[in-house]
C-alpha cells in the first residue's frame, strides 16, 4: 500500500500524465479505426517510448492498450464495423441503437461500461498478482517448463480455429526464438554468418511486421468495402436520446458487474482473449434477460455487457504475466519487451526487486482508467469524426510509423528487412488461419522454455521416472495431454456436426470477412 502511494506520487505529475493521456488518446483513435487495434498500436509505439522515463513509457503503452479496447466500440456502434473483433457483440445492439438515432446514448453506455470494467479489473490485478507471485517463487525449472508447455498448448489450441495449426504456429515461434547465439555454449544457430542475427531476432520489428504491416496490406486489399462502410455512417441522434436514463442505469449496473467478472476471469486464463469474454458476457446477459428476443434490435444492456467484459480482459490478462512471467495474450507478449526495455522484468521476482516500478505501473493503470473516461466523454464527437477519414489516408502514415519503429529498435536497416520478412509470414498466417498470437507468445516464451527444459533434463538426470518427484510438473504435463485430447475431440465433434446459422444481426458483411480471422 505504501508503494502504491509512492506510485501515485510518481505518476501524478504533468509530464507523466501527459504521456498516459497521449497513450489513451492514441489508443482510442486506433481502436476506433477499423483494422487498427491495440496490438498494432502497442507494437508501433514501443520504439517511440525508448526516450521516455520508465513510468511515462509504461503508462503510455498501457494507455494505448486500454484506450483502444474502449475506442473499438465507437466504430462498432456507428459503422457496424468493430474496431477490434472483441467489439463485435457491441455492434449487435449498438448499431441498431445508432440507426434509431440513439448513437450518443450507445456511445456513452459503451464508454461507462468500458471504464467500469477496466477499473474493477485493474483492482483485481493489483489484488491478485502479488499473492500469486509468492506461490510462483516456489516453482522450480521442472515445474516452470511444464507450465510453459501447458500454456503454449492451451493458447495454441484455443486462439485459432484449428488446434493443429495453432500448435504449428507455437512451434514456429519457439523455433524462431532459438535463432542467434546459444546461451550456454555460444554456438551460433541459424545465423547464416550474419552478425546481426547473433543476438537473435528482435521482437519489435517481428511484431510490427506480423501485426501492423501485414494487417495494413490486408486492409489495402479490402479498401473498397471498408470505404463503402465509412461512407454509410449513421449520422443522426435526437436530443432526447442522448442521455442514459435512471432506469437504464438500474438495468445496466448488474450487467456491467457480471461482464467485469466474466472478462476478468477470461483474462486470467491464457489464450482466451477479449473476444471470448465479450461474447460470453453478451450471451450470459441475453440468457438472463426477461426479453432475450429483443437482443439484436437495440438493447442498451447488450452494449454494456460486451464492453464491460471486453475492457476487463486487458488488465486481468496481465495477472499471469506479472505473477508467473507468462504472457496470456498478444498485448502481454508485447508488453514484456517494453517492460524489460524499461528495467522491469515481468515475473514473480519483480515484486521483490522493483516494487516501486510495479506500484508506478499500477498507479498509471488506475490513472489511465480515469483519463479514459475524461477523454472518451469529451472527445466522443471528435472520435466519431475521425472514423470517417478514409483508410487510404491512414494506411500510408501507419506504414511510415511501422518502418521508423522497426528501424529504431537496432538503428539498422536490417530490422526493416526482418519486419518485411515477417510481414510476409504474418500475411499468409492471417489468411490461412495460423494463429499469429500463438506464434508471438511462443517466440516470447521460447528462450524460457529452452532454458527450463535444459535445467529440467539435468535435474531429472535424463530419467522420465524422476518426474514423480515433481508432482506439480506432472499435473501440468497431464493437463497438457488432456488439453490436446479435449481440443482434438471437440474439434472433431464440431466438424462432424452440421452447422446451423443463428439468425441474429451481424456486423457488416464486408467486414466479417476481414475480421473473422483476426484474433486478439
Amino acid at each position, binding site marked *: 500500500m505504501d508503494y502504491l502511494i509512492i506510485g501515485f506520487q510518481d505518476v501524478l505529475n504533468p509530464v507523466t500524465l501527459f504521456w498516459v493521456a497521449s497513450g489513451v488518446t492514441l489508443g482510442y483513435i486506433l481502436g476506433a479505426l477499423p483494422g487498427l487495434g491495440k496490438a498494432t498500436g502497442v507494437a508501433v509505439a514501443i520504439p*517511440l517510448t*525508448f*526516450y*521516455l522515463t520508465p513510468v511515462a513509457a509504461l503508462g503510455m503503452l498501457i494507455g494505448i492498450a486500454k484506450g483502444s479496447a474502449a475506442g473499438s466500440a465507437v466504430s462498432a456502434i456507428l459503422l457496424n464495423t468493430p474496431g477490434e473483433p472483441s467489439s463485435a457483440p457491441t455492434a449487435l445492439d449498438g448499431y441498431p441503437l445508432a440507426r434509431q438515432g440513439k448513437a450518443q446514448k450507445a456511445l456513452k453506455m459503451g464508454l461507462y461500461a468500458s471504464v467500469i470494467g477496466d477499473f474493477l479489473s485493474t483492482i483485481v490485478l493489483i489484488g491478485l498478482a502479488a499473492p500469486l507471485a509468492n506461490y510462483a517463487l516456489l516453482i522450480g525449472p521442472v515445474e516452470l517448463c511444464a507450465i510453459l508447455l501447458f500454456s503454449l498448448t492451451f493458447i495454441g489450441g484455443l486462439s485459432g480455429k*484449428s488446434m*493443429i*495449426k495453432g*500448435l*504449428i504456429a507455437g*512451434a*514456429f515461434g*519457439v*523455433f524462431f526464438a*532459438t535463432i542467434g547465439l*546459444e546461451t*550456454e*555454449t555460444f*554456438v*551460433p*544457430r*541459424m*545465423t*547464416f554468418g550474419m552478425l546481426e542475427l547473433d543476438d537473435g531476432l528482435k521482437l519489435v520489428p517481428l511484431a510490427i511486421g506480423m501485426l501492423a*504491416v501485414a494487417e*495494413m*496490406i*490486408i486492409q*489495402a*486489399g*479490402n*479498401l473498397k468495402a471498408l470505404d463503402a462502410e465509412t461512407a454509410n455512417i449513421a449520422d443522426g441522434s435526437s436530443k432526447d436520446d442522448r442521455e442514459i436514463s435512471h432506469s437504464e442505469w438500474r438495468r445496466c449496473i448488474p450487467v456491467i458487474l457480471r461482464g467485469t467478472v466474466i472478462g476478468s476471469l477470461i483474462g486470467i486464463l491464457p489464450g482466451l482473449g477479449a473476444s471470448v469474454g465479450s461474447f460470453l458476457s453478451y450471451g450470459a446477459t441475453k440468457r438472463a434477460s426477461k426479453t432475450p428476443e429483443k437482443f439484436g434490435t437495440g438493447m442498451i444492456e447488450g452494449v454494456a455487457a460486451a464492453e464491460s467484459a471486453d475492457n476487463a480482459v486487458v488488465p486481468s490478462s496481465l495477472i499471469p504475466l506479472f505473477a508467473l512471467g507468462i504472457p496470456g495474450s498478444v498485448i502481454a507478449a508485447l508488453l514484456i519487451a517494453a517492460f524489460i526495455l524499461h528495467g522491469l522484468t515481468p515475473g514473480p521476482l519483480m515484486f521483490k526487486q522493483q516494487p516501486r516500478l510495479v506500484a508506478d505501473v499500477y498507479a498509471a493503470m488506475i490513472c489511465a482508467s480515469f483519463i479514459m473516461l475524461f477523454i472518451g466523454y469529451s472527445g466522443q464527437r471528435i472520435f466519431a469524426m475521425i472514423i470517417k477519414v478514409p*483508410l*487510404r*489516408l491512414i*494506411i*500510408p*502514415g501507419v*506504414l*511510415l510509423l511501422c*518502418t*521508423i519503429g522497426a*528501424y*529504431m529498435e537496432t538503428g539498422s*536497416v536490417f530490422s*526493416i528487412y526482418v519486419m*518485411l520478412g515477417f510481414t*510476409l509470414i504474418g*500475411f*499468409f498466417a492471417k*489468411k*490461412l*488461419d*495460423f494463429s499469429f498470437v500463438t506464434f508471438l507468445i511462443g517466440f516470447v516464451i521460447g528462450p524460457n*522454455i*529452452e532454458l527450463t*527444459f*535444459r535445467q529440467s*533434463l539435468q535435474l531429472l538426470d535424463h530419467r522420465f521416472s524422476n518426474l514423480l518427484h515433481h508432482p506439480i510438473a506432472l499435473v501440468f504435463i497431464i493437463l497438457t495431454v488432456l488439453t490436446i485430447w479435449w481440443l482434438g475431440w471437440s474439434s472433431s465433434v464440431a*466438424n462432424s456436426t452440421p452447422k446451423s446459422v443463428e439468425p441474429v444481426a451481424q456486423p457488416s458483411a464486408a467486414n466479417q470477412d476481414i475480421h473473422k480471422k483476426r484474433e486478439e
Partner: protein
Amino acid sequence: MRRANIISGIVLACFGLVMIFAIIPWQIEAGPKGMMSPSLVPTMMMVLITGLSVLLTVINWRARTKESIEDTPNPVSRAELAALVKVGALFALALGLYLWISPLFAGIALVAGALLILGERRPLVLVLMPAGFMLAIWFLFYKVLGTAIL
C-alpha cells in the same frame, strides 16, 4: 480452406524436412561434450512442425469432398495479393532510396507511393501528406523527445 490446408501442410512438411536434414545440421555446430546439443530444441520444434503438418494434410485430405475443394473461395483474394505485391514493391523502392539517396526521400516515397497505390489522386493531398508526416516526425523526435533517429 481444405485445399489451402492440404497445400500449406505439404509445404510446411517439406520445409520441416529440409530444415531437419539440411539446414539445421549445416547451420548449427555440435556443442561441447557433456552439454546438451545446441540443435536439440530447434530440431525438436521442426520435428513437431513436420509431424503436425503431415497430420494437417492427412486430416484435410481424408475429409475433403468434391464440393469442399471446388466451392470454397480462395482464402487469399486477388486484391489482397495485388496489395501485397504493390506494397512490397513500394518498400523495395523506399529501401533503394534510403540506401542510395537519403532517408528523407525514402520516407516521402513511402507515404506518397502508398497514397498512389491506394488510389489517391488529389495533387494537394499527395504533396501535403508526405510533407506533413515528415514534419511531424521531425518535430516528435528532434523537438519533443529530443533525440536524433538517424
